[in-house]
């Protein structure tokens, strides 16, 4: 147990050091300001003592004073106060900037990693976790920075105080030498007691949130089966555990707060007790007694700042521990230097001996997949659920890299191509569509400079032009977060237009029309087939993951995927005749669709 605490303290100090190293300038400024504040706090106590000795006591005991003495006293008090205020202002502003800069900097680094790391990394990490890594975890990592310079200033202040105490009266210094270490001990015990409780509360918060998420997502099931009471019981159980956890946290804090306040007060009283004797002996004057007693009162707050930093360190470390794996994650997609053939027609595609396995999976998702797609041809990838179709689609446009084997675009390994080259040549419409919180135009062009008539042409191919025309602001209509204002089918079609507008030489459709009515899908497929001809170009190469016969019938060739292997290739008719599995699958689907 003590060893673990040492480790926490050591790691905590290293973390504090990290903050200082990252923002040395701001820290220095904040520290200087804080020291000014500390010095002036001590000074204000001395001014008070001097004023007591030289102005108050003579006036009140002997009835003599002068305007000069009063003015001097007033300006001394005010002058010290103004310097102290400058110290506070500087400390708070610079400390604030330091903390916020660290937050912003780490948020940039974390999100930079999100954009840099390969998709396979994303697939291993739940969305919710990544969101909190970039947000609350980063914030928690640097929360302690705000009171840090204050705490460092407090250490300086305590140093000055002890020195002043020793210089004034060693007996009074003794009080300080007892009280200050005690403060540190109480602080240390506090963070020790607090951190496991905080961790538990945080864990319970997450669990409560999980239940709420799940239960609300299940609203329709809960309601139509009349299971609201069951759900409420489930939620109540965890909410009450959380309550107990929070009360446990409160119990520790509830004791710590008054203790931290009582210590300086007891110090002041001890100073009075010892000091009175010293004054009676004539060793110390009443002014010194007053200033030291006052000093203890003023020190109460800065000393607590040390507590704030220490108390927050476990949380900061926990947050930083969650951020570090993101920052340290490697697996950046390396890019080559090759430039793809700048052809205008469809690209040739080659898949050679490709294996792919998800991390931790018992069997590979794809193994030994090999096939070629001739430029300008259309290939349908058909297979039962879980046969690896979507994974294959991702490999073709280098969303993921194969474990072994290679994917060739016009004979060049995708990994050898320069960055940006693949997305310039190929476009994919993934199964789950994603729209940005942007206008329709922005979602189609993705920031590229594309004339409106081409945007409209792409929307027409995707059979969504009528929908967009009816929107209040046409192309300039914002679609809301993740396209919330549109229906699933409309979102899919806009995503399709996004791919079409780029005139890709390779178009990969991963079941990209699943939410579109069959009738509309037919229109889209007709248009896709006719589209390149409209532009008097050779058609793009199209790879389509499909179920519906209409889609399959469009293909020049069908690749039959089962259990991650290509078990057959050929025309639709060929496969129907030769491959029993294929025939069963396609017919089964046709039966449910047509029920002939």
């Amino acid at each position: 147990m003590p060893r673990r605490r040492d480790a926490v303290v050591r790691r905590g100090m290293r973390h504090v050091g990290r903050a200082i190293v990252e923002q040395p300038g701001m820290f220095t400024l904040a520290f200087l300001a804080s020291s000014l504040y500390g010095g002036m706090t001590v000074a204000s106590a001395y001014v008070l003592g001097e004023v007591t000795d030289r102005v108050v006591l003579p006036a009140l005991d002997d009835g003599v004073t002068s305007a000069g003495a009063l003015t001097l006293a007033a300006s001394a008090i005010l002058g010290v106060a103004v310097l102290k205020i400058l110290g506070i202002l500087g400390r708070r502003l610079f400390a604030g900037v330091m903390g916020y800069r660290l937050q912003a900097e780490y948020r940039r680094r974390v999100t930079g990693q999100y954009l840099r790391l390969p998709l396979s990394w994303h697939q291993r990490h739940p969305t919710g976790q990544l969101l909190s890594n970039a947000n609350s975890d980063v914030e928690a990592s640097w929360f302690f920075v705000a009171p840090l310079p204050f705490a460092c200033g407090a250490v300086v202040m305590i140093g000055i105080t002890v020195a002043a105490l020793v210089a004034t009266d060693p007996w009074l210094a003794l009080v300080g030498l007892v009280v200050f270490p005690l403060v540190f001990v109480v602080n240390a015990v506090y963070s020790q007691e607090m951190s496991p409780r905080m961790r538990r509360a945080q864990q319970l918060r997450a669990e409560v949130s999980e239940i709420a998420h799940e239960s609300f997502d299940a609203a329709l099931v809960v309601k139509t089966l009349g299971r609201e009471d069951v759900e409420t019981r489930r939620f109540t159980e965890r909410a009450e555990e959380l309550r107990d956890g929070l009360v446990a946290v409160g119990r520790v804090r509830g004791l710590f707060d008054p203790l931290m306040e009582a210590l300086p007060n007891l110090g002041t009283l001890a100073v009075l007790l010892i000091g009175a004797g010293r004054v009676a002996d004539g060793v110390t004057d009443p002014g010194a007694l007053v200033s030291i007693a006052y000093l203890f009162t003023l020190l109460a707050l800065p000393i607590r700042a040390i507590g704030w930093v220490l108390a927050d360190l476990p949380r900061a470390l926990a947050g930083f521990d969650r951020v570090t794996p993101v920052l340290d994650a490697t697996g950046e997609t390396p890019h080559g230097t090759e430039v793809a053939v700048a052809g205008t027609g469809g690209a040739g595609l080659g898949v050679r001996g490709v294996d792919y396995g998800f991390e931790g999976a018992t069997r590979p998702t794809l193994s030994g997949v090999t096939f070629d797609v001739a430029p300008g041809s259309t290939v349908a990838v058909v297979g039962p659920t879980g046969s690896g179709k979507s994974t294959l689609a991702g490999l073709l446009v280098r969303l993921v890299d194969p474990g072994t084997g290679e994917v060739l675009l016009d004979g060049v390994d995708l990994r050898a191509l320069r960055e940006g080259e693949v997305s310039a040549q190929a476009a994919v419409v993934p199964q789950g569509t994603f729209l940005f919180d942007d206008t329709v135009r922005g979602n189609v062009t993705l920031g590229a400079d594309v004339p409106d008539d081409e945007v409209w042409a792409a929307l027409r191919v995707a059979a969504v032009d009528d929908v967009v025309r009816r929107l209040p602001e046409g192309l300039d209509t914002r679609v809301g977060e993740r396209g919330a204002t549109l229906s699933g089918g409309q979102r899919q079609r806009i995503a399709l237009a996004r791919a079409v507008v780029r005139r890709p030489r390779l178009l990969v459709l991963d079941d990209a029309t699943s939410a579109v009515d069959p009738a509309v899908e037919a229109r889209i497929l007709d248009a896709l087939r006719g589209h390149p001809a409209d532009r008097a170009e050779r058609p793009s190469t199209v790879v389509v993951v499909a179920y519906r016969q209409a889609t399959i019938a469009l293909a020049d060739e069908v690749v039959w995927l089962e259990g991650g292997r290509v078990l057959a290739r050929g025309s639709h008719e060929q496969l129907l005749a030769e491959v029993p599995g294929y025939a069963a699958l396609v017919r089964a689907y046709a039966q449910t669709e047509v029920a002939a």
Partner: protein
Amino acid sequence: MTTAVAEHREEGALATLRRGLRMMPEFRRGLPATFALALVATAGRVVVPIAVQQVIDRGLAGPGGPDLDLVRNVVLLCAAVVVLTVVAVYRMNVRLFRTTETALAGLRVRAFRHVHDLSVLHQQTQRRGSLVSRVTSDVDQLSTFMQWGGVLGVVSLGQLIVATVVMAVYSWQLTLVVLLCFVPLAIAVRFFAARLAVVHGVVRERVGDVLAAVSESVVGASTVRAYGIRERTAARLDRAIDRHYRAQVRAQRVTASVFVSGEFVAAVANVAVVVVGVLLGLDGDITPGTLVAFLFLVTLFVSPVQTASEVLNEAQNAVAGFRRVLDVLETEPDVRDPAVADPATARQLPHTPLGVRFEHVTFRYAPGARPALLDVDLEIAPRRRVAIVGETGSGKTTFAKLVTRLMDPSCGRVLLGDDDAGWVPLDRVAFASLRRRVVMVPQDGFLFDATVADNVRYGRPGLSDDDVRAAFEELGLGDWVAGLVDGVATRVGQRGESLSAGERQLVAVARAYVADPDLLVLDEATSAVDPATERRLTHALDRLTDGRTTLTIAHRLSTAERADEVLVVDAGRVVQRGSHAELVDAEGPYARLHASWRRSSAGEPQPAG
């Protein structure tokens, strides 16, 4: 909007608190005792100034020279008070935490339950995230605030009062001087509060922007990569992060100025106390100890102001969160269980097969909006299997929601029953009876993160694993469930993600099957299902619907072909009704739908003849 959540934007913090206290009975329990302890707690803060005064005036400057015995007694007495204060504050804190956490847990649970009663939950699925915040982060924020700010607030207030009383006992003139110094500050605090509210409001808004940008980069990860728009996304992120940073710095500037204003006023008060005190002291109205004690007491005035500037932001966040939770709680559910709302008139459904009757039913999602259903008047006989077809937005889903009473019609009424047993208006049926007899299988058969058996049991609690296995067997899914890694004990993962979309449907069908309803409403899934699963599903659905009145919202015409009867909905009206065979041959929308769908399924470019 009928489904909107009530909002009270202009309400002040106090009004929110009053509203909240009404809704949190736990909160009031034991509160007087807590406040009594708080008063004791503040005593600890004034004993030091009193001790200073006593020591200086009576201990050191006593008539017979320094009186060290008196000093010792005073100091020991005060130390005892300080220790007592620690105990009192500790007791107060624990009481306060326990009361508030209990009250907040109660609030959380009530809000959770209430959200389930609101139709907004299933009507506006995109708002689910924000509803989750109502029972999580909003309440968390309140609790955090209560643990920091709440205690500080109570103590600060007590501290001001006790300090003023002690001052007044010592010297009313000096008390007046000190109060005069702090009055301008008290007035300025209102202005500061408004200013702080604005800058912190901006910070909150920017946090939202950052979150939205981060979530795009994560959720849209594959799109960002596939389209090579990393730089554009990075630029958006950096801009959001930078704007957030600048808002934070601006807020810090304002907070710091408010903070030091207290410090400055304290210095002015000190000067005033010294000058006025000395002048008063010349006439012998004041002792040195009193004057010094005043200087100590002034510090007690400063810290509440500084505390206020620190906790104000948290307080505003907490109050805003509180308000949002209360708004949800105060939103009347638009569909209420008659057994709760009006037990006298609540009725049970007759124990006969159920028919459905619509009497001139019109439904609008919002007053004045285009009706989603218009004057629908029809009757469906018990045990019929009816398919409802129509284009997206034609009103078929609305139809299903009205039958299951997820919503009530704007005009007209829906009844269940039959001619022999009588017809019961749906809005009179107790939920316990309704949910037992009428079950809906929604489009995405949502699964909980539990085992297959647990998910099936959700339809009927208390079933054993063997019962669940038997149910799958009866549905013709025995081989499928046996093929799972752990059979019915297989965990399905979050939202059932370890299963395919089609397999999730299978479990949902089993869940509806064990619920054993008399009236079944199926919203057919549109998501892609692989053909083998599709076949299983069709088969299981046949078993499920056998002998039950079934309304299916059909997205595939094959479903319509198998139904006893087809209802064609178009623009909110039932435009055709009959069997598939009749409708295909008749002129009308059904024949057209059928032709276009056949064409796409068969992959023939020309319309089928």
